[in-house]
């Protein structure tokens, strides 16, 4: 199905890389505009390159450039950097954060939103990001809300949420996806090298899985 507009909301510059970038590339290929709102620049990341080419102070600049390169590769022309700080999203005022996201929702009017499933996404920034998107959308009447596809990877997500209901085969765009992953060099180079040594990188990257958010109101 061709979407009108896709809005991707994640807290860290590489959150889209492994689990969503193939989906993004396919939407772009279908002619659907994609907006990516990224809450932080991943300032507190621990991957600094091997050997380290980033430091605590240069990391956000490097990750911003990597994200811009990934967006260029994926064909995302609308990247919004919201200016929050890594590892602090959960401590922000929830209403203010939802206001920022609500403004982007109102402006872009997406038919599909992609974010983290709140409570099932391990990193507190992931959960707080997903929760803010849901909070913003709950201000809309239920029947006017866009579909929300969530990424989740907590140990209990399948037990609580069941199997993911959206399974996308992204093998037709796998080269684009791999290039987008590699664009986040500071964060992914070590992982990709380890995976290629094991020889299992491609298999799991060819499929992307989402849970459609179930409204509880």
């Amino acid at each position, binding site marked *: 199905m061709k979407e009108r507009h896709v809005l991707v909301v994640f807290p860290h510059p590489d959150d889209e890389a492994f689990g969503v970038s193939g989906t993004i590339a396919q939407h772009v290929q279908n002619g659907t505009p994609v907006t990516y709102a990224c809450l932080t620049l991943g300032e507190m990341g621990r991957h600094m390159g091997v050997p380290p080419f980033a430091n605590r102070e240069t990391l956000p600049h490097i990750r911003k450039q990597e994200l811009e390169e990934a967006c260029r590769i994926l064909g995302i022309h609308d990247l919004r950097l919201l200016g929050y700080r890594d590892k*602090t999203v*959960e*401590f*922000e005022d929830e209403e203010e954060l939802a206001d920022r996201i609500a403004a982007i929702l109102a402006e872009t009017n997406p038919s599909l939103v992609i974010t983290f499933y709140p409570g099932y996404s391990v990193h*507190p920034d992931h959960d707080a990001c997903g929760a803010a998107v849901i909070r913003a959308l709950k201000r809309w009447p239920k029947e006017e809300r866009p579909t929300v596809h969530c990424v989740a990877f907590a140990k209990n997500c399948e037990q609580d949420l069941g199997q993911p209901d959206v399974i996308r085969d992204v093998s037709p765009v796998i080269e684009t996806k791999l290039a987008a992953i590699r664009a986040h060099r500071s964060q992914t180079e070590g992982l990709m090298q380890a995976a290629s040594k094991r020889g299992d990188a491609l298999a799991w990257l060819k499929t992307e899985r989402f849970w459609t958010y179930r409204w509880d109101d």
Partner: protein
Amino acid sequence: MQPIDAAAVQEALDRFANRDVYIHLETTNGAYASHHNERFFSAGAYIRNVRIRFTRGKITGPGPYRVGLKLQIGWVYAEGLTHWEWTNEGQLLLAGHDYEGKLAVALELSDTPFA
């Protein structure tokens, strides 16, 4: 110290907001971590009696808890917090003890410098 009561800690954090307070913040693996396990890379840091002023303090998590203090132009953050205490001097002490009961992290706030 008592197991953290998140609502009570939130109330205490609110009382310290928007005024000058002294902070002690510490993380530690203990001085012997690398001695006991050569593959363990020991790291830690602490600051003590640094004066800060935060606009919002918040405790989150299901336990162990996390606390973030938003400053005018910065942040203070601690994770792994399990216990708390209000001292007679009005100091808020938060600590995280590991599975063996040893201190791993401490975040403390006081209106006056710590001794």
